[in-house]
C-alpha cells in the first residue's frame, strides 16, 4: 500500500473521531462513525487479506445502520445543522483531542521500538490515536449514543492493532459478536426509556 493511502486513511480516522468527540449531532456522528470504519478497513488491508478486512467494515456499517434505523424509528433524529455556532465545550473537546493526537504521534516511534516492533507506523498511529480519542469521548460524554459510539470506536482501534499482531478466526468471530452486541445495546439505550413493558 502506498503511504499516501495510509496517510489519508489515518487522517480520515482522526477526523471522524474528532468529529464524534466534539459535535453532538446524531446524524453527523453516525456518518462519521461509518467513515471511520472505512478508514480502518483501508489500514487493515496492510495486515489482512481483503476478504478478512471486509468483515469489520461490514459489521461496523451494520452496527451504524442499526443505530440509525433505531433513531429514525424512535422519531428522535433531528435535522443536522452543519454550520451551527461552535460552543466552548466543543472547542475544549477539540483542543483536548488534538493534543491527544499530537501526544500519540510523538510517542509512536518509542512505542513501536519498545512494544510493537512488527506493527506498521500508520496502523499503530491510527489504532492508538483512535483508542485515545475514544477514551476521551467516553470520559467526557454521558449520553448513551455517544458512549456507544465511543466504545465502538475504541473496539475498532483495538481490533486494528490486534489484527497486526495475531490472526485467529475464533477471535475475529468473537469481535464480530462483540461489535454487533454493542450496536444492539446502543440501540436498546436509545429506545428503552420510551419502551412500554408489556
Amino acid at each position, binding site marked *: 500500500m502506498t503511504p499516501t493511502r495510509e496517510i489519508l486513511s489515518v487522517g480520515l480516522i482522526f477526523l471522524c473521531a474528532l468529529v464524534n468527540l466534539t459535535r453532538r449531532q446524531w446524524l453527523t456522528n453516525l456518518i462519521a462513525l461509518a467513515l471511520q470504519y472505512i478508514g480502518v478497513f483501508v489500514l487493515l488491508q496492510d495486515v489482512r487479506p481483503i476478504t478478512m478486512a471486509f468483515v469489520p467494515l461490514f459489521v461496523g456499517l451494520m452496527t451504524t445502520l442499526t443505530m440509525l434505523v433505531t433513531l429514525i424509528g424512535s422519531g428522535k433524529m433531528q435535522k443536522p445543522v452543519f454550520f451551527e455556532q461552535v460552543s466552548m465545550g466543543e472547542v475544549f473537546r477539540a483542543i483536548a483531542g488534538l493534543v491527544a493526537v499530537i501526544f500519540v504521534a510523538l510517542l509512536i516511534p518509542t512505542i513501536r521500538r519498545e512494544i510493537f516492533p512488527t506493527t506498521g507506523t500508520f496502523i499503530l498511529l491510527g489504532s492508538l490515536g483512535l483508542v485515545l480519542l475514544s477514551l476521551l469521548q*467516553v470520559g467526557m460524554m454521558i449520553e448513551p449514543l455517544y*458512549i456507544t459510539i465511543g466504545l465502538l470506536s*475504541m473496539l475498532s482501534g*483495538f481490533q486494528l492493532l490486534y489484527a497486526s499482531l495475531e490472526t485467529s*478466526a*475464533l*477471535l475475529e468471530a*468473537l469481535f464480530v459478536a462483540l461489535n454487533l*452486541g454493542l450496536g444492539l445495546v446502543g440501540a436498546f439505550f436509545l429506545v428503552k*426509556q420510551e419502551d412500554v413493558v408489556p
Partner: protein
Amino acid sequence: MISMPLIWIGLPLLIGTALIPFTRYRKISIGIVSVVSLLLAIVALIFPSNLAIEAFGRRYEFNPLLSLLGRLIQVDYSDLTTIALLYVLTFAWNFISLRFKVSQYFAPLSLVTAALWVTMLSVEPFLYAAVIVTIIVLVSVPLISPRGETDQPGLFRYLILQTLAKPLILLSGWMLAGIGSAPSASPLIIRAAVMVLLGFALWLAVFPLHSWLPMISFESHPWVTSMLLGGRQLALLVYLLHFFDQFAWLRNLPNIFPSLQIIGLIMITIGGLSVASTKDFKRLFGYFFLIETGYSLLSIGLVTSGGLDYFALLFVPRFLCYWLWSFSLAELADQAGFTEFSLEKLKGLFFNAPFLTVGLFVSVLAMAGAPVFVLFPVKRMVWMLAGSVDSRWLILLAIGTIAMIAFLMNFLRIVLSPINQKINYNESLFAKIVVSGVVLIIVMVGIFPHVFLPPWIHLIDPFTNLLSTLQ
C-alpha cells in the same frame, strides 16, 4: 462420543437463546431455565471422573474437547465443580424470580450468561476469554437496566470500565506468547504483569476502581445485581487463578502474593468503612461485593500458607448470604412496595416486616463473619492465616469487621425505632418460610461446615501447577 462443552455450553446457550422470543410467558421461561440449570448442576456434580457412563447395557464416552473455528473449547472433569456452582447460582436465582419485578429477559439471559461464563473458563487459548467477558457485560445490560427505565450513570460506568479491561488482558497475552522462561525481572514480563493485573482490577472492581459497584447496586434491582455480580465474582476469580496456574512468570514475580494480600486487606477495610457510612441500603450490595472480593484476593495472596482451600470454601457460604440479602430486599421492594431504602425510610421496619428484617440482619451478620453463621468457619481460618503472616494485617481486618458490626448496630437502632408509618403489608407465609429456611441453613452450615462445605474444595482442582509449585 458426546462432547462435554456441548452439554454445559451449547445446550444452555441454545435453550437460553431460544427462550428469548417467549419472554411474555414468564412462568414457562423461568420453569425451563430452573429445571435446565438444576439438571446441569447435578450432572456436573455427579459426573464420573473417567468421563464415561454405562447405561442400558451401553457405554457412553464423553469428549472434553470441542473444536471451534480452529481453536479449542475444553471442559475438563476438574472444571465441573466451578461449572456446577455457576448453574446452582442460576437455579437459585431463577426458581422464585417470578415474585420479583425483574426484566422479562431475566430467565433466558441468566442461562445464557452462565453458559458464557463456562465458555470463558473453557476457551483455549484462555486469553480469548477477555472478549467473552465483554460479551457477558453486554448481555447483562438489559437485565441491569430493563425497558421503561431511565438511563443510569452507574451502568455506563460499568460498561466503559469493563470494556477497557479487555485490551489489557489480550495484549498481555500476546506480549507473553513464548517467553515463559524469561527472567521474572524482564521489563516485558513486568509490563505484561501490570497489564494483566490492571485488567483484573477493572473486572473485579478492585479499590479504587470500584465506583460503579455501589452505583449499579443502587440503580438496579437487588435480585438482578446479586445474581450477576455473584456469578462474575466466581468466574473472574477462578479465571485469575488460571493466570497464576498457567503462567509461571506471573506467580514467580517478586512480592506478587504479598501484594495481593495487601490489596485484599485494603478492600476489606474500605468496604467495611463504606458499609458503615452508607445512607442507602441498596448501595450496600456493592460494598459487600468489594469486601468479599477482598477476602478472595487475600486468600489467593495467602496461597503459600494454604489460603487456596479457603478461597474455594468461601463461595457457597457467600452466595447463601447474597441470596438471603437480595431476597429480603427484593421482597420489600416488590411485595411491600418500598421504593426508597434510605435509613430514614426504614425506621420501624421490624414491626412491619419482622422476618425480612431478620433476613437482612442475618445476611450482613454472616458476611461480617460472626460466630455460628455460615462464613465464620472459613473467615476465621483466613484471619488466622493473615495474622500468622503479619500480625498488623489483623488491624485492617478488625477495622473492616468492626465497621460492619457498627453498621449492624445502627441497623438495629433504626429498624427497632418507633414506627414512622404503618405500611399496608403483611409478610406472606412463603416469605416467612423462605427466610426462616435460609437462616436455618446459614446457621447449620456455620455449625457443621465439615458436612456441607468439603465438596466445594474441588473448585481449585484444575490449578495443579499453582498448588504443586507453592504448597
